[in-house]
């Protein structure tokens, strides 16, 4: 089975996010980059499928040079090969351009199954997997918490608003991951060493048949025009005092009623 994992690097949760001078991007110098948590689930599931059915796991990323480090982490988890689409024209890419770049790369790769995270925790977007599945004209099964493959079909349990659905589609298909799918493995030291020798190819837009002039800032469909810090909360924080839990409860409820938070 040829399995492709779409991987994105995102700032670590604990990272200090600061607005850069242009007011439309963040400072990246001191940011620790990690694999998008939902994409980690994707890597892990791909490895489990490979362990069960045989085949190859390829990590595909569209991102800056630093993303190579996160691809290496995925290789250390057990993936076989990495491809990084890196191009100056993609530096400020929106999800629309990212989806197009990934699609072009995927069209040049055999793919029986594509696995992606259901969303990216930095921009909270779930657009990319949806668009890629649409462009490739394959089934999209999102928010998957369990999957099984047999006879060229994949059956998945999806989390939906009111519970879960078990659905089935023929391969090739694209599935997106949801919490509960698995617990990603930690790369072992021997595997970290092995990963250094695994192929990681860097391609630019021309290498995947695309023209950079269709990808610059002028081609953005989703434009960030400003970034601001949210109003600081908690500047009027109140410590609810009381000699006992009972007293604190009385006081808290009075405070909440004052604020009309509770009726």
């Amino acid at each position, binding site marked *: 089975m040829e399995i492709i994992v779409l991987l994105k690097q995102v700032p670590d*949760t604990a990272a200090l*996010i600061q*607005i850069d001078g242009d007011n439309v991007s*963040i400072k990246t110098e001191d940011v620790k980059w990690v694999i998008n*948590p*939902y994409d980690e689930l994707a890597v892990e599931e791909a490895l489990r499928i490979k362990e069960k059915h045989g085949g190859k796991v390829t990590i595909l990323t569209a991102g800056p040079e630093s993303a190579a480090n996160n691809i290496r982490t995925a290789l250390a988890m057990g993936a076989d090969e990495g491809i990084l689409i890196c191009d100056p024209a993609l530096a400020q890419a929106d999800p*629309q351009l990212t989806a197009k770049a990934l699609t072009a790369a995927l069209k040049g790769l055999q793919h029986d199954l594509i696995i992606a995270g259901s969303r990216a*925790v*930095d*921009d*909270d*977007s*779930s*657009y990319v997997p*949806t668009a890629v599945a*649409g462009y490739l004209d*394959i*089934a*999209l099964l*999102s*928010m998957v918490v369990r999957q099984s493959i047999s006879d060229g079909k994949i059956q998945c*349990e999806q*989390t*939906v608003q*009111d*519970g*879960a*659905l*078990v*659905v*089935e*589609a*023929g391969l090739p*298909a694209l599935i997106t991951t949801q*919490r*509960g799918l698995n617990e990603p493995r930690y790369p072992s030291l021997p595997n970290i060493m092995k990963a250094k020798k695994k192929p990681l190819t860097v391609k630019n837009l021309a290498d995947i048949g695309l023209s950079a002039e269709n990808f610059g800032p002028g081609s953005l*469909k*989703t*434009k*960030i*025009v*400003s*970034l*601001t*810090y*949210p109003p600081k*909360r*908690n500047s009027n*924080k109140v410590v*609810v005092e009381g000699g006992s*839990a*009972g007293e*604190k*409860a009385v006081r*808290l*409820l009075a405070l*909440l009623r004052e*604020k009309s*938070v509770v*009726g």
Partner: protein
Amino acid sequence: MSKYVLVFAGYAPSGFKKSTFEAISEGRRLADRLNASLTAVTAGHGVRNIAGGLAEYGADRIIVCDHPELAEFDQSRYTSILEDIVKQNSPGIILFGPSSYDKSVAACLAARLDAGIASECVGFELDGDRLLATRPMYGGKLLAGVTLEGAAQIACIRSNVFPVATAPRTAEVVTIDPQIKESRIRIVEKKLKNSDRVDLTEADIVVAGGRGVGGPDFGLLERLADLLGGAVGASRTAVDEGWRPYADQVGQTGKVVSPKLYLACGISGAMQHLAGMSSSECIVAVNKDPDAPIFNYADFCVVEDLFKMLPALINEVRLLTY
């Protein structure tokens, strides 16, 4: 061809959700500012019986797409309905609700129209015909102002942010007969819950528990939530320990909620949890540990054992209601 705002009234097998009315109310507000009309689209099976209700919130026109094959949600089929409407007569702005169904149709439509999309929006402004959407990024650490290009400006609202406002009128109801295409996806089994409790992402009040609860017995939190008409949430720890289901998780890899009141019990307040609840209107933290990071974010800080505080609070709330 006159200007109009389109709102997708969502997949609503058990009636429209509050968040749909929020989207329509906001659509009405934008349409008024644009001197445009508001069209709501509802698709499903049996929706013709409830479609008229959308006029209450300001829809001038209601497009009804009622078909047995639409009883089950199918991203591609639902998107095709909207795509056909948009291709006939393009609205300047298309708004969606916050549910996973809404977002999935919105993203699919944006891809087919090669248009930009902004989801989890907490505010909208207009500059002429151009929409400026405000949405959180980086787990709520920043707010982004976003503009959209393409055949339509597509946005999904965040739950519990936009007020529901009635703007009743007589609406034109249009019934369309959709061409239902073969789906790639076959539904094998449905495991749907019929919960009486309000959905976590729509709740005005969330009572959430973390490591401090110490085990799967969330009875005190459930009792308090029931009394307050709220929902029960959980931190990642509580979910990882197997005490609560993934669906209850609030956080970066769980649900993002923005209730009027978030009561965090025995939750330390890790960044990834904050990402899920930082836009709550009022945060109350109950924790034995005075140094818990959550006290840096809470509006009301209660340093107390939750097993003492919750019964006391339940008592006080009961006194209120009797």
